[in-house]
């Protein structure tokens, strides 16, 4: 696509998309408590506005193509300008639409899910903050604003994961997410600095132009910058070894898990790599293999972990990590469109999966699949939504995930990463296996719990139904050879794309992938459907060494705890505390003591003895003078007469002598 419009008025006012959630946040903080839905209405309205506007922009992009960018200078530091602005191009409009649609639907769902929650107003305020920060992130025209949005979503994630902070493990999960992201963000920030100083500007357009033109100042640092930015992306998108926070993040309320940890926030890393794609495709292309490796490892290990989970949300969390691995691997292999297409479809079906999980958890009051079973008849809408989304995830034709996952596998195979492709195909089997397991354990068999299970209210089921339909049709926007709309949407950018290999219709890969997926479903059916009633069979598949390893998450958490956390908590923290208490506090306290001593001297010596003495003496002298003087008033008239005569005599003598 070479022709493009500049978006006209709609693009110029696109900053409203970014501002609306923040306005909503402030309105919720101000008025939320008094409203009937505790501020949820405000949030849903704002997200509705974002959804409509983003849909309009998407249509505009589909029709004419939009490339627009506007920046305002905010600060000037030396020779660097810090700017704030917004971008409206193919990639951005796609992200706006994803964020807007999912936000709108999940917010609506949340008004039902969070009803009666202890901190409902705060929840919607923080959720709106998240939506605003995410939009800041995807609308950024420069790396600095990206980092602002990045940290903003990190903050919102921390707040929302720890929503039920009364339980220690929830607040700990929030901290774990924050710390893990923060360590990865070191890479992001240093990468941004490196690239910015090499090019002289933080703007994407400048950096990518420099990358495309092989700017000599950028050449030495391009690879390093690429690696560092990717490290930041690894943190946010939960790639190995930074993936540990995402499963624990399930401690937050389910709408949070759906929107943030499936559809939007975790895709920020994928978005970053996609945004900087020309850099990776061009000057930093030497490190792309690293991206593919990380992506492949992630998708495999996370998929394996999903098999042994009893908590339904954790299954989905590991599934998310695994799917993110697919996206990252695709981008690393050169599949710009493939990775983004999977991001698009994944948002719909994984977001839906979490919503259905929330619906189940809401009804059953437990996260664990061992407390579920036989819910198919009692919660039909939830069941069919779950089914639709699972089929999309497992990549069964014609559901959405089929097209996107197939495209990824084709890209990996056709660009020389055949080993990654086979890992991806194995991953398809594993995905099908654990999703089948989840479905059979949850919906089939008999319900053994005591909770009164009923379908969720309309405000929750309608979004689920909408997403269920989307899980079916979302993939139809990019069928290779038939309609390649999505490809054209997201390549509508202000840069020229280096030529990429055809991500075409590779029948062999497609059939292999499909075959493995169906195979996985059958295996899980065989193992789990029969035992859905008794749910005893799980021990039958307990492979001796593998299962304990998986159940302990490869002992990674213990490794991190021992190597990173405890040394900092223990000796380092104690040393810092000692320095603070004795050295720094000592200096401060010493200053205070000196000041007090000086004050005492001034007060006691100068003020009390010196100044006060002078004043008191003056007063005493006056007093005693008066004391003596009043003795003149004897009351006796003769004394007065004597004084008069004496005075008169003196006066007259004086006059006589001197005049």
């Amino acid at each position, binding site marked *: 696509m070479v022709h493009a419009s500049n978006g006209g008025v709609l693009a110029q006012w696109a900053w409203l998309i970014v501002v609306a959630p923040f306005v909503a946040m402030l309105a919720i903080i101000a008025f939320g408590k008094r409203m009937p839905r505790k501020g949820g209405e405000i949030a849903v309205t704002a997200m509705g506005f974002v959804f409509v506007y983003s849909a309009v922009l998407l249509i505009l992009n589909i029709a004419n193509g939009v490339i627009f960018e506007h920046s305002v200078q905010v600060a000037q530091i030396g020779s660097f300008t810090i700017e704030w602005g917004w971008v409206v191009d193919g990639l951005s409009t796609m992200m706006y639409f994803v964020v807007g649609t999912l936000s709108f639907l999940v917010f609506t769902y949340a008004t039902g899910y969070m009803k009666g929650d202890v901190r409902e107003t705060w929840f919607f305020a923080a959720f709106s903050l998240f939506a605003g920060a995410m939009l800041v992130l995807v609308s950024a025209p420069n790396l600095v604003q990206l980092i602002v949005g990045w940290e903003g979503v990190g903050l919102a994630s921390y707040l929302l994961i720890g929503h039920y902070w009364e339980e220690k493990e929830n607040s700990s999960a929030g901290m774990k997410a924050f710390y893990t992201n923060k360590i990865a963000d070191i890479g992001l920030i240093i990468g941004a600095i490196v690239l910015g100083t090499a090019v002289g500007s933080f703007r994407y357009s400048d950096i990518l132009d420099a990358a495309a033109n092989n700017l000599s100042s950028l050449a030495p640092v391009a690879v390093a910058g690429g690696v560092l930015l990717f490290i930041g992306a690894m943190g946010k998108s939960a790639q190995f070894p930074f993936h540990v926070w995402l499963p624990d993040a399930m401690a937050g309320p389910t709408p949070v898990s759906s929107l943030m940890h499936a559809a939007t926030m975790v895709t920020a890393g994928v978005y970053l790599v996609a945004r900087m794609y020309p850099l990776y495709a061009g000057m930093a292309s030497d490190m792309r293999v690293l991206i593919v490796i990380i992506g492949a490892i992630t998708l495999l290990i996370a998929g394996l972990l999903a098999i042994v989970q009893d908590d339904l949300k954790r299954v989905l969390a590991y599934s998310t990590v695994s799917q993110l691995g697919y996206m990252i691997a695709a981008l690393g292999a050169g599949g710009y469109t493939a990775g983004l297409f999977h991001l698009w479809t994944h948002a719909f079906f994984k977001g839906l999966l979490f919503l259905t999980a929330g619906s189940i958890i809401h009804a059953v009051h437990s996260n664990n699949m061992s407390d579920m079973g036989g819910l198919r008849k009692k919660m039909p809408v939830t069941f069919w939504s779950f089914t639709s989304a699972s089929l999309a995830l497992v990549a069964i034709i014609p559901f959405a995930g089929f097209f996107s996952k197939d495209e990824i596998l084709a890209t990996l195979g056709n660009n020389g990463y055949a080993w990654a492709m086979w890992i991806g195909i194995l991953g398809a089997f594993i995905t099908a296996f654990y999703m089948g397991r989840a479905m059979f354990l949850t919906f089939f068999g008999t319900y053994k719990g005591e909770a009164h299970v009923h379908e969720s209210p309309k405000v929750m089921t309608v979004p689920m139904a909408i997403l269920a339909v989307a899980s079916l049709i979302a993939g139809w926007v990019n069928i290779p050879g038939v309609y390649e709309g999505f490809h054209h949407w997201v390549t509508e950018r202000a840069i020229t794309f280096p030529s990429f290999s055809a991500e075409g219709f590779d029948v062999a890969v497609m059939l292999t992938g499909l075959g493995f997926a169906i195979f996985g479903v059958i295996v899980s059916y065989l193992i789990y459907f029969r035992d859905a009633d008794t749910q005893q069979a799980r021990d039958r598949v307990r492979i001796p060494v593998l299962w304990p390893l998986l159940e302990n998450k490869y002992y990674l958490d213990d490794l991190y705890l021992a190597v990173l956390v405890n040394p900092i908590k223990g000796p380092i923290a104690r040393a810092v505390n000692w320095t603070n208490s004795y050295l720094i506090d000592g200096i401060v306290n010493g200053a205070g003591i000196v000041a007090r001593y000086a004050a005492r001297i001034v007060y006691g010596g100068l003020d009390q003895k010196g100044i006060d003495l002078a004043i008191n003496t003056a007063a005493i002298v006056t007093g005693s003078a008066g004391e003596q003087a009043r003795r003149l*008033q004897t*009351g006796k008239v*003769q004394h007065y007469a004597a004084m008069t005569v004496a005075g008169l005599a003196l006066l007259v003598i004086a006059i006589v002598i001197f005049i």
Partner: protein
Amino acid sequence: MSLVQFLVLGALMFSFGVYGLLVRRNAVMVLLAIELMLNAVNLNLIAFEAALRTAFAGGQVFAIFVITVAAAEVGIGLAIVLLIFRNRRSANVDEMDLMRW
């Protein structure tokens, strides 16, 4: 006759009066001393009148006024002394010191 002799005499009488004013304990005696002083003043007035011979005899007229006022003053003064004597059974000026500090 010289004027000075009258004036000296008047001064002498006046200083006796001052002495008596400062020394006497009885209130009535103090008043007597005051009368003496007034008398000395009258003598001075008349002496000056005789020396200056003004057309309107101012000195003598004033001497009459002085006598009149002296009479009034004695009347009031003795009335006060009487009241004090009634209250305190004593006319001793040394004991009349209620207006002291």
